[in-house]
């Protein structure tokens, strides 16, 4: 399989993730869609790393994984805090920053 296939797949997954963020209202599902997008990026990185011929892309993908993990941790912490304070878990309800 040529590298193109992987890249096109990666962009499809990225688009699906972006659509998901725009469509869903629950914060958990939004975080899941964020994971989708990050993983799509990882796939692209690894595919390019294979194309170039060295592993530097894979190191990049590893670091992206670390960052994704951290971000998930914080995001879930936020959600738990929201839940603790009995706030609605719906991003449309949480809009005190409206103009």
């Amino acid at each position, binding site marked *: 399989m040529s590298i193109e296939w992987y890249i096109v797949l990666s*962009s499809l997954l990225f688009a*699906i993730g972006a659509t998901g963020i725009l469509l869903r209202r629950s914060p958990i599902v939004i975080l899941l869609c964020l994971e989708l997008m990050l993983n799509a990026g990882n796939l692209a990185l690894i595919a390019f790393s294979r194309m170039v011929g060295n592993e530097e892309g894979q190191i990049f993908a590893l670091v992206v994984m670390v960052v994704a993990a951290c971000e998930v941790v914080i995001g879930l912490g936020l959600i738990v805090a929201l839940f603790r304070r*009995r706030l609605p878990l719906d991003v449309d309800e949480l809009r005190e920053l409206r103009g």
Partner: protein
Amino acid sequence: MEEVLFFGAALGTLGGAVGVIALRNPFYGVLALIVHLFSLAVLFLLLSAAFLAAAQVVVYAGAVMVLYVFVVAYIGGTGESAWEPIPGQRFLALLLGAAIFIELAIAVLASSLLALGTGGPDVEAGFGDPAAIGTLLLEKFLIPFEASSILLLLAAVGAVVLAGRRSETTVGGGDLP
């Protein structure tokens, strides 16, 4: 053989992704994402990234997803309503998603980067091995390595702070902090 595996894994990822965005119950969404991650690991293997495939399964599907499962179990995860308060959001979301995919696809397929059309150069047997990754991490990418460990520490501390139980003397106990 490779094509079969590729298409199988690709279907798995796509199915998982669509499941994440389509399933109402967040628990089911988490499960769909796990499927997606496993399929991705297979794709990584196909790209000679063995260590990363393992890391994906162990760290991502293993640890991060378990975290998700815990939180969803704690919260309870009811489905959200089908009514859309923002007018035009659904249509525009689908439209823009499609637009992004089409544009990226055109960019890739019509690209003048000829190497994309190949399967990549021939690599030696240890490509993507833990040894190779480890060598790079400790030699060339030492600083990013250390920086990411600090990042992890920050995240851990942050999570504890965020989710910790506040004492009742804070102002406005029911408001956002």
